[in-house]
């Protein structure tokens, strides 16, 4: 069952030095699975996520042969139709909750607003739904959290609130862009477990964008490895450590490891051929 089908996606930015290609012909499909996209900064992984929701602002250009959500092409939609997709059918969780929540609204008001935009409901029903949403991300004292402002929350709490808010409309796809990079390791695990639980129990598709290879290997089903705007390798997440592309191998080898102490870390030698080679398709 294919939820999302992306074929030959390009994101371009015109600059004074000519057109810069941030994403160059990326193709993949997403079913009811956890798809990881990994790469270094500048590899185009976040741009891919944003382009799906058509969140690239002009002068940036998004081109693709196809971006289809359950068979319906997103590229042909008007901006108004697109607004019914964003948040309602495809949601996005960004890296830092501090910048994603409205600092001058209480968390309760923001959750209620999110719910009432998606459902016809009175305030009372919406409040109950907001409390349920907070409970689903393991926030037990929901009443207190609802009255609080975002700055009163820790990073882990903030990110859980973001996930709760994104899941209120019941989207089919969640795009998580480095959702745990700003969090401590122990909190990171909790947030991932919650996200995993919600995504699997609701039969959603998850696009998990991260720079952390180990995290993606642990958490996802399938992984796309991006380099210079292209997908250079596709593999099963549990086989990530057996990846064959020299770039993926280079990234894996440059990580310090506790179980294999080394005097010096191996340094990635970038080969211009990698960015020239045609991309790999992640379509099934």
């Amino acid at each position, binding site marked *: 069952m294919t939820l999302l089908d992306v074929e030959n996606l390009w994101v371009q930015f015109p600059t004074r030095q000519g057109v810069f290609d941030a994403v160059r012909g990326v193709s993949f499909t997403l079913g009811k699975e956890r798809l990881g996209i990994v790469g*270094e*900064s500048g590899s185009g992984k976040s741009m891919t996520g944003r382009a799906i929701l058509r969140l690239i602002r002009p002068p940036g250009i998004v081109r693709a042969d196809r971006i289809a959500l359950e068979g319906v092409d997103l590229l042909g939609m008007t901006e108004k139709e697109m607004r019914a997709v964003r948040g309602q059918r495809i949601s996005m969780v960004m890296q830092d909750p501090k910048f994603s929540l409205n600092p001058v609204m209480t968390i309760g008001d923001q959750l209620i607003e999110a719910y009432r935009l998606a459902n016809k409901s009175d305030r009372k029903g919406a409040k109950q739904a907001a409390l349920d949403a907070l409970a689903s991300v393991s926030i037990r004292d929901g009443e207190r959290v609802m009255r609080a402002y975002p700055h009163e929350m820790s*990073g882990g709490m903030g990110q859980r609130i973001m996930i709760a808010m994104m899941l209120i409309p019941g989207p089919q796809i969640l795009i998580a862009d480095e959702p745990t990079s700003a969090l*401590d*390791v*122990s*909190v*990171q*695990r909790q947030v991932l477990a919650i996200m995993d639980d919600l995504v699997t129990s609701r039969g959603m598709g998850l696009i998990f964008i991260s*720079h*952390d*290879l*180990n*995290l993606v*290997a*642990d958490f996802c089903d399938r992984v796309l490895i991006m380099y210079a705007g292209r997908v250079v390798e596709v593999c099963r997440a549990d086989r990530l450590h057996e990846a064959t592309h020299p770039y993926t191998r*280079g*990234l894996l080898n*440059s*990580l*310090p*490891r*506790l*179980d294999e*102490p*080394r*005097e*010096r*870390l*191996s*340094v*990635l030698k970038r080969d211009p051929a990698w960015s020239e080679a045609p991309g790999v398709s992640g379509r099934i």
Partner: protein
Amino acid sequence: MSMLSVEHLNVWFGKGHNRVDAVTDASFDVAPGESFGLVGESGSGKSTILRAITGLVPTWSGRITVDGQDVAKKRHRSFYKTVQMVFQDPYASLHPRHSVDAVLGETLHLHGFRDIDARVVRLLDDVGLGQKFRFRFPHQLSGGQRQRVAIARALAAEPRILLLDEPTSALDVSVQAEILNLLTDLRAEHGLTYVMVSHDLAVVGHVCARLAVMKDSRIVEIMDVDSLRAKRANHPYSQELLRNSVGA
């Protein structure tokens, strides 16, 4: 004889009801040429210890000695000749309108060196940047190159102790490997002593021989790297931290 010793260090912020104890009763010793790690979650006080050592936090009590000398509340100029710090974010720690040459030149001038020109060249070579970066501005450098400039600035004073506050956490893994290798080389060449703060146990395990685990402003355990690798932690919190570290 230890190069750096911290005894019963307390650091606090605010007064009265608003007082927050950021570090409580921390003690550790670092031998000359050793590298020592501080790990723990955000807010556990690990960076605050470094800031207290360099004099960026005035509200501390306890005893800090550097090379046998007691550190006074007001740092003497000679202190900064011995101890230098490298910060987490290379984007924030360089002046955006000063060229690399100006950053290093000014630092050298402040430390009273005369042969500034030759020293700038040598510093750039030391951190693997070379001459062609000398007249660039921070926005013309990548994150890894900026961190190299920040390290060069710290080395300008010819210090014996480098305090490293998450020196690679803002960088990509491949760049992180380059910077960690650079730190390894510099320590061997200049016989430096490192105190490194990081939330990444694998990074600390790579650089440091011993480390302290911090939780809620206290050091709960000091262990050596072999115990870390074998996951032999005594304190329940350190055990949890080891379990939670992916791939570690």
